[in-house]
């Protein structure tokens, strides 16, 4: 393992921001830590970088315990959330910074700066002032700066957080390609699931300083570990239920469950696609409370009597109007018994 955290704990005034976290990152792996703000994901990066001392536990890089190794000797790269480019240096000065710190010869520095600026798609931008760059360009310079000293581990803190949506979607693809080509080992944190799923080989969901789930993007998406992960991924239809062999008792009535689902008191997730709208005389009777346009479909919010609301995904043309009364049936294939 290139990086291993063992029982890593950081407390801020008694509150554990990182709570006995165990995490491993293999060489050439891209791991993305996903979590809401305040879940401790930035602290995780800072602890690995050596900017935040651990209260207990270990950070191990290449088999070597990093306790007592100061940040500048750990040989890891960190790309900061708002880039933190050095304002008094030009683009080339920023990219060359890490090389200068390692006393690389001047010609080698110049060569490497050029190479990296080409790599991030800013050829010939070396003399430009960083204050004059757009957000996307700053992000590229920050990336080039972090990559220049060839760190054994590259960490990214909300790498695309401040960029607009279309740019973000384009850059995430570029980053994934780039890291794949260079074989970079990456540990990134983000609160944006789309970014995490697009970038990562493996996604780690954090909650209150602990790891809630770890798995491939597909795993996490298909089988969220618990109600928190499901809600964080944007699923609204999560309820407590008593699961039997074929169906579960829920506030929405009997809901069919897939074969072999675990039995007993469980948390049940119904994907919006599994909520089928039928005529009002069949199934669960609901009133349409709201509808939001989502591009590919319409999300319809349904109020079934005094049970929790349900979200359904409808085709654009088939969506009912607000105030309409409809019936709801459930599709076992889109239902997941959590935990």
């Amino acid at each position, binding site marked *: 393992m290139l990086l291993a955290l063992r029982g890593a704990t950081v407390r801020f005034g008694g509150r554990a921001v990182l709570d006995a976290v165990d995490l491993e990152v293999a060489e050439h792996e891209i791991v993305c830590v996903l979590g809401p703000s305040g879940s401790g994901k930035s602290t995780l990066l800072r602890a690995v970088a050596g900017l935040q001392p651990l209260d207990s536990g270990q950070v191990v890089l290449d088999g070597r315990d990093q306790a007592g190794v100061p940040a500048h000797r750990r040989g890891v790269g*960190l790309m900061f959330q708002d880039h933190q480019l050095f304002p008094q240096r030009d683009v080339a000065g920023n990219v060359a910074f890490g090389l200068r710190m390692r006393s690389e010869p001047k010609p080698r520095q110049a060569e490497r700066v050029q190479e990296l600026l080409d790599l991030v798609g800013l050829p010939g931008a070396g003399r430009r002032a960083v204050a004059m760059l757009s957000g996307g360009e700053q992000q590229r310079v920050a990336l080039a700066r972090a990559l220049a000293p060839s760190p054994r581990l590259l960490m990214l803190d909300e790498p695309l957080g401040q960029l607009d949506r279309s740019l973000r979607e384009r850059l995430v693809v570029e980053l994934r390609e780039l890291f794949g080509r260079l074989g970079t080992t990456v540990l990134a944190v983000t609160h944006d699931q789309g970014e995490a799923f697009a970038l990562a080989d493996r996604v780690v969901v954090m909650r209150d300083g602990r790891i809630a789930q770890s798995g491939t993007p597909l795993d996490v998406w298909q089988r969220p570990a618990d109600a928190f992960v499901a809600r964080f991924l944007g699923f609204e239809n999560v309820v407590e239920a008593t699961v039997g062999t074929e169906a579960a008792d829920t506030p929405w009535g009997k809901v069919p469950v897939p074969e072999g689902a675990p039995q007993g008191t469980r948390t049940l997730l119904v994907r919006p696609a599994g909520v089928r709208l039928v005529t009002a005389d069949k199934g669960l009777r609901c009133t349409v409370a709201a509808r939001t346009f989502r591009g590919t479909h319409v999300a319809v919010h349904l109020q079934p009597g005094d049970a929790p609301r349900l979200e359904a995904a409808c085709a654009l043309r088939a969506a009912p109007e607000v105030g309409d009364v409809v019936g709801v049936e459930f599709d076992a294939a889109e239902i997941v018994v959590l935990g």
Partner: protein
Amino acid sequence: MDLTRTEVAARKRSAAARFGLLAAPVAFFAVFFAYPVAAIVARGLKTDGTWHIGRIGEVLAQSDVRHVLWFTTWQAFVSTALTLIVALPGAYVFARFSFPGKQVLRAVVTVPFVLPTVVVGTAFLALVGRGGLLDELWGVRLDTTVWAILLAHVFFNYAVVVRTIGGLWAQLDPRQEEAARMLGASPLRAWRQVTLPALGPAVAAAALMVFLFTFTSFGVVQILGGPTFSTLEVEIYRQTSEIFDLSTAAVLTLIQFAAVGAILALHAWTVRRRETALRLVDPSVTARRPRGAGQWALLGGVLATVVILLLLPLAVLVQRSLGAPGFGYYRALTSEDGGVFLVPPIEAIGNSLSYAVAATLIAVVIGGLAAAALTRRDAGRFVRGFDALLMLPLGVSAVTVGFGFLIALDEPPLDLRSSWILVPLAQALVGVPFVVRTMLPVLRAVDVRLREAASVLGASPWRVWREVDLPMVRRALLIAAGFAFAVSLGEFGATVFIARPDRPTLPVAVARLLGRPGDLNYGQAMALSTILMVVCAVALLVLERLRTDRTGEF
């Protein structure tokens, strides 16, 4: 367990680094400030190995001492109030209006603050004193009234208010007030509810600074006070150098020390409050051209105040210095005159400049180290306490420090009495607080994560300081050096004791010339003051070009 121990070790290392940075400033202040002051207090209150604490009660019981205390306090209050009233509109105008010549004007209003108190006193003497401009025009003389002192204090401290309050005001986001307006507040109400509370701590801090400067006022009162008006500082000087009553002087020093300590504690508290989460913006976006008759009138009023209150006294000073035909007073400076000095007065310029350069170097090194130590994020209570202590030399009687130097630093291993370094050391004491105050806000404004970014890229702590901090504070460092230079140039209270008779500084020479009768001496005093003023003003104008938009406290 091992891990916990290494983390503790890391924390200890950082504490050690901080201690290393603080060691030089602490040693400097212990040897050149605490020790001389303690020595002189001991000299006054300790005879034959026993302390006479009872002297404090005895001295306080004297009616003339109580009178001095009363006068010191009330003139400081009135001076502070007057300064606020006169300067607050100025702070607003400089913060919110843009008009041609604003930069130059900002420099102009700051000139009085760095002027030596002796020059300020002389200038007001030339304006409102016997044979002064007002006397000639209308027969009005104020030098026998307290008004001369109060006006000089306003003149001197105008910049403190404009800079501290105006600096923050310019950075307050005007949209905060707009948000209040959108919620239904009238312009006045929005100002009162939103802007005033945000400014409050800055107003308090500025007021306390002005109070401190006027409470410990020496040169101005010495020249304008005559026999009637005397502040604590002047009284300490009188008791020490004229009456030789060291025990009374020691008690007065302790009283002033206690008062200054209290003021500084209040100041530290307000400064901390000021640093709490205000949303600040770039000052260049908050200023705009005045609109409407009211705003133009306000601008005009402020300009008129600046001209009458700040420029007129200086102009009169220059005019008086030219009173003799053919630059007579200036030429007289170059001749051996009737024994006021052992050397031609003009040599005071060279003395002053070389002392000031040495003092500036000392102040920048000591103040820079202290500021670097105080910036560290993990600075604890002890370090913050040191922050406040650094300000003490601004308020503790300079006279005491000067005299303390003479009696404390006169035996081995520290026998500096005959060394030239004594004067720069005393002057640096006053310069250090300015260096720290100018550099701290800039250093604290350097984003911690910028340092972290450098660190992650492989820069050692020393390298981080050189690569990240230094380029950003270079300008602040120059400005701090300039302030230290100007302050050293004008230092009077301590220098008057320790400057050797054959090596007077400019302010000392001016005071001695003023103390002698005759037109020629008076004229030479004006001429020397003018020279001193020009040197200070030039230094300041150079600084103003360097000033970053982020202003320190001065």
